[in-house]
């Protein structure tokens, strides 16, 4: 793509999410859409993490575990230790990244379906841990988490106290979308720098990669940590929006959905998970009217889509653009 086309499409995208959407919602009065779109933005951040593990050739069905972990870390720091919400956001991400390094060191040696199976159980392990640990308050979860307070730097208020806002939904929407934009900008940069090439070399042939001197163990742990960081950040904001976190806040279904978002959008495209999340989230809601057939139709459509469009929805719009 030409540079000017790139800049124009980025500008158009920013204009849509930051200006057009709030204006349209205000005009139509459908403020409930804020919550939906905020969820899409956050889920797409978690999905972007999953996408990055796909990029090193690993099928990750365990992102729910890190989202849950991030949510609890933020909630516990706010409730038990009196932290403001804002610093807990990066801390939750870093905590998840650190945990994923410890978990990843042994399990990233596995490939293919074996890695997928282990990660699938991670979410369940996280849920059971949340039920069992004293600090997470068991099945009752952590509730009545206060809304994010004001964020000031050198006495200058950058973000006002959410509780004093008339429209905290808009505030959360803007927060989630901003983070989504940052997240995808980081991903884009990662993939289009040499790091992306190195990750591709892992995806395509780990033996050859190590024979040309790539430290594959180090690189895949780093990639997994980045992935889990995104999961943790997304989880932390979810806890703040719903002002609560339970062991069942993120389940195996969520982990599977994060993966499906990537498949649907396209594994070869950085912005695949964003589109995938949007389509999947709204698709599921639209099918609600079909009642008991919802899951059947949904699953059938997913299978057909994977057969017809193995490279995802974005492969329709963008011609195949390899490496």
């Amino acid at each position: 793509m030409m540079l000017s086309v790139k800049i124009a499409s980025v500008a158009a995208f920013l204009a849509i999410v930051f200006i057009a959407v709030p204006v349209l919602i205000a005009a139509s009065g459908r403020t409930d859409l804020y919550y939906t779109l905020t969820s899409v933005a956050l889920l797409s951040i978690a999905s972007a993490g999953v996408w990055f593990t796909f990029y090193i050739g690993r099928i990750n069905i365990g992102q729910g575990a890190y989202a849950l972990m991030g949510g609890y870390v933020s909630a516990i720091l706010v409730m038990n230790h009196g932290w403001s919400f804002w610093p807990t956001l990066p801390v939750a991400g870093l905590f998840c990244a650190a945990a994923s390094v410890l978990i990843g060191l042994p399990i990233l040696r596995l490939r293919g379906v074996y890695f997928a199976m282990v990660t699938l159980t991670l979410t369940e392990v996280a849920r059971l841990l949340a039920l069992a640990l004293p600090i997470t308050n068991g099945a009752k979860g952590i509730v009545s988490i206060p809304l994010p307070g004001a964020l000031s730097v050198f006495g200058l208020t950058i973000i006002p106290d959410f509780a004093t806002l008339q429209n905290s939904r808009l505030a959360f929407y803007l927060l989630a979308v901003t983070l989504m934009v940052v997240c995808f900008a980081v991903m884009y940069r990662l993939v289009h720098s040499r790091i992306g090439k190195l990750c591709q070399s892992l995806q395509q042939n780990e033996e050859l990669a190590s024979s040309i001197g790539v430290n594959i163990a180090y690189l895949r742990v780093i990639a997994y940590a980045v992935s889990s960081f995104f999961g943790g950040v997304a989880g932390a904001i979810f806890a703040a929006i719903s002002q609560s976190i339970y062991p069942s806040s993120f389940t195996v279904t969520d982990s599977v959905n994060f993966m499906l978002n990537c498949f649907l959008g396209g594994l070869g495209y950085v912005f695949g998970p964003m589109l995938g999340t949007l389509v999947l989230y709204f698709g599921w809601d639209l099918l609600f009217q079909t009642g008991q057939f919802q899951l059947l139709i949904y699953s059938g459509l997913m299978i057909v889509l994977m057969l017809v469009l193995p490279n995802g929805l974005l492969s329709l719009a963008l011609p195949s653009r390899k490496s």
Partner: protein
Amino acid sequence: MADMLEVSGLTKRFGGLVAVNNVSFSVREKEILSVIGPNGAGKSTLFKLISSFLRPTSGEVRLKGERISNLAPHIAARKGVVRTFQETTIFKNMSVRDNVIIAHHLRSRANLFGFFLGTGTAKADEAAFGQSADEILALLGLASLAGETAHNLPHGHLRALGIAIGLATNPSILLLDEPFAGMNHDETMRMVAMVRRLRDLGLTILLVEHDMPAVMKISDRIVVLNFGQKIAEGTPSEIQANEKVIEAYLGSEDEAIGL
């Protein structure tokens, strides 16, 4: 000439099976040394031991006097022992040029964070790698295919790409695993000429190969393995006259050892 690589008393057991048994030899600087032997003689195991893809049961491998056995493969590569693969192992979904560029990884001075931020060092690295990749592709006759996706290449070119990837790491010694396997006569002769040219450019090459006529043509010296043991070492003409070698290949056509 000085020894580049020194293999001493190398042994590898898999359970009760001794795949490589007390093998010693050395590779001199700027020579082509071939390891040959009948099927199951332990050539591939020896190859993996030298490139640190396997750990020896006993014995050691030294590169310019420095012990390199028992290291991780990427560390061995960093020290200068780089292998190509028996299968046509390449990065299939990258362009030919990207395959070679990525193989310059060892030479990069910027770290991962530098690449992410796009620092001056990282940019200089990228430019240098691109230029070097173009030179290597031209050397191996792949320049016209630089933009092609690697998995579309015909067999002979894939092998050349494998060698290009090896060259890009700037190795002290390049290990070629059956570079002529599956090639017809013309392709083999072209590959022989190419490998000799690399040697003339100052590279030390160790290769494991089945194709006897090609080995006889290409090698400065030959090491013969049978049942995991070294049974002979010498120049191609010495090997062709060696009783033990003829015995080991008995039952196969005389033609097989180039007689």
